[in-house]
Every structure is written in structure tokens, then in C-alpha cells.
């Protein structure tokens, strides 16, 4: 009689590439944490926190003068900027296959709206155009990419049957556009919600939107007024689908430019000076270009800038964003069960939804601003703000995703359900969301420099404040390079791990 055949089992467990990658990222973040500057420097954060909490409980709507106009202008800037960006993005998406177009789009979207605003401020002053372009330009870069991908991925069987001799325009509008239109529409309306957040934040640098009044209220310590402003902002976003009707979009967009308000007069001489003098590296201005000494000076200028500002800024930006990325992931994994039917009843889910909606509707810039008031300058407010906002976004998407999972009738409950049934099924999607968000976190990290955290944005902001625009441009170029590098690394990892690409709205 022969022995029953046995399958020789490996004696040690083997881990998948997904798990190894995750562990790698956590390890990197842990190392970063050791070097990060994390502390609470304010003398009495608790009493400030109590005053804020009291403000939240007693919102004061009467204190905000001309509230209607503020809301109107916040919407108007978002509408004008997003409309311009979407149209520009759509046109660019048609030539997105050209290498230079792709590069330009990647570069313009690597620069955050706030930096665009600061750049245009140098040319146009505090005019409405500054705010509109600050939203329109990066959004055009993002929309171009997403629209192009949507058109490319679409299954378009009708292209095959077109009669010979059909013109390009007719083919495009009949066979290509209609079946992707709904995706483009949905994405654009999602972009508009982002545009509202951008518009509000632009107020922090002086444009007449909600952020302007928010900053005033915060700096004066009138937290009841600040709470009222935030509540208005949440209501604006929560009611979006009731007032943003497809049929009204045209009217809104036409009306918006008239509601932007006046502002500084645009002077051509400023624009010319900015383009021809201000952004030219100082050693080159008026110098003899054929003189070897000039180029030595330029080398010295760039070298000093790189070592004194760009590198430290880059290190801080990378440290902070790696920590924030992992914290975002941990938070998202902890939060998503709160809104999942698989884990909780309606009461907990409602509370969970409320929390996630507030956290993802609040721009991270505002969250960071609040925590900075509480805890003083260090990386801590930035990490908490970035991970709360981004964790809430991913947690929300994951919660919805987990509800789609079909369980067997006798599946376990509680922590076993989470660990054995749900998490393994949603983890790939989770990583896709997170890696898609990586580039966004990076960009946000950079702008938090404006609040005084020593990331790249801090050095850009200081250079702008000193009116050394050549330095600011150099540092912004470094920022673009870092962002594009992270974006391509993220794409590489997503591809290698074969993560689903349905993460665009993350």
C-alpha cells in the first residue's frame, strides 16, 4: 500500500507585495517621525481650546457683516475659476497625448492654488483676476489629465461603425463624447466642490472670500464668529446638490464674473516688470551675459539657494508628507467602520458621517491654521490637519466600498469581521486611494509653509515677502520637481501592485 500523497507546505508564511509595501511605508514614516519637530509650544493650549469649543457652541451670525455678499463672492470665485479651468482642461485634454502638454499640465497642477495666487498677486495685485486665475490654472492641469484619461479608457464601440468620410468634429461629438459626458460632468461637479474650498482658502491671503473673514475672526479671537462662518461654509457644501442644478449652471457661470467685486487696478507695467526683471535671477540682471564672472555668480546664487533653502525645505516637506501619509492611512482604516453598515447601526453611522463630512469639507489649510493657534508652530498641527482631512476623505470612500462587500451568512462579527473578511477585501482599493492622495498631501504640505512650518512653502513665502521673486521662482521650480517625482513614484507603485485606478475622486 502506498502512502497517501501529501502536499509539502511551506513552513514560514509569505507576505505579499502589498503587505511589504505597506510595512515599508510605515517604517519610513517611523524614521521620519524620529527626525520631525513635534511639540506643543503654546503656554496654555487647554484654555484656548476651551474658548474655541465655547465659540463652536455659541456661533454668532450677527457678528458677520454682509454675510450674503461673502457667500456670493466665495461661490463666484469658485465658479469662474472652475469654469475657466474646466474649459481650458477640456481643450488641453484633446492634445494631452503630446509630451510637452503633459509636462506643462503636470507642472501647473503641482503648484497649489495659494501659490498661484501669490504669484499673480505680484503681477495683478489683489484684483479678482488673481483669484480666478489661481483656481483656473491648476484646475485646468488636473482636468486635462482626468478628462484625457476618461476619454482614453472609454469603451467606444461606435467609432467602428462611422461611415467613411465622417468629419473629425462630427465623429467626436456623436461617437466619442456622449458616452463619457456623464463621467466628465460628475468629475467637474466634484471639482467645483474642491473649488469652493480653494476659493474660501484664498481669502487667507486677502481675496474677499470666506477665508478673509475667517482669518480676521480667528486672529481677533472671536471664535463665535469663526464658528458661524464655518457653519455657513458647511451648509454651502452640504446643500450643493440642491442649488447647483445642471440647468442653472450656465446662468451661474455668466453671472459669476460680475460678482467678483472690484479690487486693485491692473497695471501693465507691473506685469512687464514681473516677467522681464523680477523673476530673472539677480546675478543675471543687467550683467554682461558673455562674461564668465556672471555665470560664476549665478552658480553661486543657485548653489547657496539650493543648500540654504531648497534642501532643508525639501527635507522638511518630505518628512512631513511621509508622516502625514501614513497617519492618513491609519486614520482612514480606523474611521471607515464608523460609516459601514457591516459594523454599526444607524446611530453610530450618523455620527460617523457627520464627523467625516465636517473633516473632509474643511480645507486642510484651515484645520492647520486652527491647530496652529492651539499648539503653536511645529509639525504637529500640520500632521494632524493633513491626516484628519485626508483620512476622512479616504475613510468615506472606503466605508462606501465596504458596504458593497458580500459576506457569507455565517461570517464572524466585530474585530474578526474587520480583520478577516473586510480589510483583506478592501485593502487594495484603500492603497489605491492613499497613493492617489499622496501627491495631494505633498502639495498641501508645501503650502502649510505659509503658516510658518518650515516646508518648501515657507521659503517661497519668505522670498515673496522680501520681494525676491527670482528666489521664489527657483524654489517653486524645486517644488514642482519634487511633486512630479512623487507623482510618478506613486504611479509606479500603483502599477506594480496592480491597484485599481478608480481612485480619482479620492
Amino acid at each position, binding site marked *: 500500500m502506498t502512502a497517501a500523497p501529501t502536499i509539502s507546505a511551506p513552513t514560514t508564511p509569505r507576505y505579499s507585495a502589498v503587505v511589504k509595501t505597506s510595512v515599508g511605508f510605515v517604517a519610513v514614516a517611523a524614521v521620519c517621525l524620529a527626525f520631525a519637530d513635534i511639540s506643543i509650544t503654546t503656554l496654555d493650549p487647554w484654555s484656548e481650546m476651551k474658548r474655541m469649543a465655547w465659540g463652536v457652541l455659541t456661533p454668532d451670525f450677527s457678528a458677520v457683516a454682509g454675510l450674503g455678499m461673502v457667500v456670493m463672492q466665495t461661490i463666484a470665485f469658485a465658479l469662474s475659476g472652475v469654469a475657466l479651468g474646466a474649459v481650458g482642461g477640456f481643450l488641453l485634454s484633446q492634445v494631452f497625448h503630446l509630451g510637452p502638454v503633459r509636462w506643462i499640465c503636470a507642472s501647473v497642477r503641482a503648484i497649489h492654488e495659494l501659490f498661484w495666487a501669490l504669484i499673480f498677486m505680484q503681477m495683478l495685485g489683489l484684483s479678482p483676476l488673481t483669484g480666478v486665475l489661481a483656481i483656473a490654472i491648476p484646475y485646468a492641469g488636473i482636468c486635462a489629465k482626468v478628462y484625457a484619461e476618461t476619454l482614453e479608457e472609454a469603451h467606444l464601440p461606435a467609432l467602428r461603425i462611422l461611415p467613411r468620410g465622417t468629419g473629425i468634429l*462630427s465623429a467626436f461629438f456623436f461617437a466619442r463624447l456622449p458616452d463619457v459626458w456623464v463621467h466628465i460632468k460628475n468629475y467637474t461637479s466634484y471639482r467645483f466642490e474642491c473649488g469652493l474650498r480653494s476659493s474660501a482658502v484664498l481669502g487667507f491671503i486677502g481675496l474677499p472670500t470666506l477665508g478673509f473673514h475667517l482669518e480676521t475672526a480667528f486672529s481677533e479671537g472671536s471664535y463665535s464668529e469663526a464658528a458661524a462662518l464655518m457653519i455657513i461654509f458647511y451648509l454651502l457644501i452640504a446643500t450643493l446638490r440642491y442649488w447647483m442644478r445642471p440647468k442653472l449652471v450656465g446662468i451661474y457661470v455668466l453671472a459669476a464674473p460680475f460678482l467678483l467685486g472690484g479690487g486693485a487696478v491692473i497695471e501693465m507695467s507691473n506685469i512687464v516688470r514681473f516677467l522681464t526683471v523680477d523673476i530673472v535671477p539677480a546675478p543675471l540682471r543687467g550683467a554682461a551675459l558673455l562674461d564668465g564672472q556672471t555665470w560664476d555668480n549665478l552658480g553661486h546664487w543657485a548653489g547657496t539657494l539650493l543648500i540654504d533653502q531648497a534642501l532643508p525645505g525639501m527635507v522638511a516637506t518630505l518628512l512631513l508628507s511621509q508622516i502625514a501619509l501614513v497617519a492618513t492611512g491609519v486614520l482612514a482604516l480606523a474611521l471607515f467602520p464608523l460609516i459601514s453598515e457591516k459594523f454599526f447601526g444607524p446611530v453610530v453611522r450618523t455620527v460617523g458621517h457627520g464627523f467625516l463630512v465636517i473633516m473632509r469639507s474643511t480645507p486642510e489649510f484651515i484645520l492647520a491654521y486652527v491647530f496652529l493657534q492651539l499648539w503653536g508652530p511645529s509639525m504637529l498641527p500640520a500632521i494632524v490637519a493633513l491626516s484628519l482631512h485626508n483620512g476622512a476623505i479616504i475613510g468615506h470612500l472606503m466605508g462606501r466600498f465596504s458596504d458593497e462587500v458580500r459576506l457569507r451568512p455565517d461570517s464572524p462579527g466585530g474585530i474578526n469581521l474587520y480583520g478577516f473578511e473586510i480589510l483583506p477585501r478592501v485593502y487594495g482599493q484603500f492603497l489605491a486611494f492613499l497613493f492617489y492622495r499622496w501627491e495631494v498631501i505633498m502639495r498641501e504640505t508645501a503650502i502649510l509653509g505659509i503658516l510658518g512650518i518650515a516646508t518648501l512653502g515657507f521659503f517661497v513665502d519668505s522670498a515673496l515677502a522680501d520681494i525676491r521673486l527670482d528666489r521664489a521662482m527657483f524654489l517653486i521650480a524645486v517644488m514642482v520637481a519634487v511633486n512630479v517625482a512623487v507623482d510618478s513614484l506613486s504611479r509606479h507603485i500603483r502599477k506594480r501592485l496592480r491597484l485599481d485606478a478608480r481612485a480619482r475622486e479620492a
Partner: protein
Amino acid sequence: MNVLFRLNNENLGYDGAAVLRGISITVAAGERLALVGESGAGKSTLLSVLQNRYDGNTALIPQDPGLVRSLSVFHNVYMGGLHRHSAAYNLLNLIWPRQREIERIRPIVERLGLGDKLFERAGELSGGQQQRTAICRAILQGGDAVLGDEPVSAADNHQSRIILAALGEAFETIILAMHDVDLALEFSTRIIGIKDGGIALDAPAGELVRSDLDFLYRT
């Protein structure tokens, strides 16, 4: 004899991998050809090669009916005539269908039983209705020939006869891949049977009976 299609001892397939080998075929104007054989035998390959080689205008009815799901039946049928109008006129009809075009298209869709669906989205129709929409589009398009890949696969016997009769009136030359052997014999003038990567049968339909085709489906 006016020859429309000619293949001479050719290997046909995708990406260099031949599905069919040593294919020689000549199709003259006025012929009604039925391609028969097991599914996967290479009928679709042969059809798309014929379509791509032909220089003039032919109408195509692919197996996936090639519809724009978010557009109405009217618009999908209208697409068969895109080449006849300027881009501006086409766009005008996309947004606001002209009465003249509606009147042109209405009788075609009514004949194929889609009269009440004219302004419904193609994506919301049943498989059979989608297939008939694609046939209406081909009829509107017209051309020297129509090439159809199982155009009546989702129709019952009665509907199939209406569809084939409509195609017969609209086109002089017809090449259809068909799985219903009886219908193929009834409708076509010539049968081409495909088996084992080659043409196993090529004969006038009038000289064949059903049992002559049985060997094509035997393994």
C-alpha cells in the same frame, strides 16, 4: 462581373496570429453571402478584413451593435449619415433634431418595430432592440454593401425575416455571418462554410440542403 471583394490565398488574423489560412474569396456585386460555421471559427475575422480592405462605402453591423448608449435611437440611426452633412448641421441635429431628419429616419425604425422608441436612449433598450437600431443605422447609411456579424442573433423567426427583407431592399450586396442555417439557406444566394481555419464549403445556396452543412458543426 463587378468584383467588390477579393482575397487571394491569404492568412487572416489579429496581431500576426493567423485565425484563417490560405483564404481565397471573390465577391461580386449583387451577391448575398452567408458565412456559416461554429462560433469561434473565424467568421468575424473574415468580415472585418473584408470591411477594412474595401475602399468605397460599406455599412457595418458589428456583433457588439456599436451604439452610443447615452444617445437616442434617432441619434444612433442618424450617425449612419454623418458623412453626408457638414459638422455644423450634424451638431445642430445632435442638440435639436430637425423635422426633416426625423421624417427620413422614422419609416426605417417603424419598419423594424422601433417606432415608439425613437427618442429613447439606446442603452436602455433590450438586446434585440439595440441590434435592430444598429440595422436601421446601416440602412440609413447605405453604400455598396452591408457586412453584418450575426445581425439577427437576438431576433425571433418572424422579426428575422422582416430584418433580412429590409436589408435586401436597401443593399445590392450583402455579406452576413449567420448561425441559423435554415435562415441562411433561405435568404442568401451563396453559402461559405468555415471550419478548421479554412473555407470548407463555397457553393450556391440553391444547390444545398440543410444536411449538407451539418459537417461544419461536427467535431
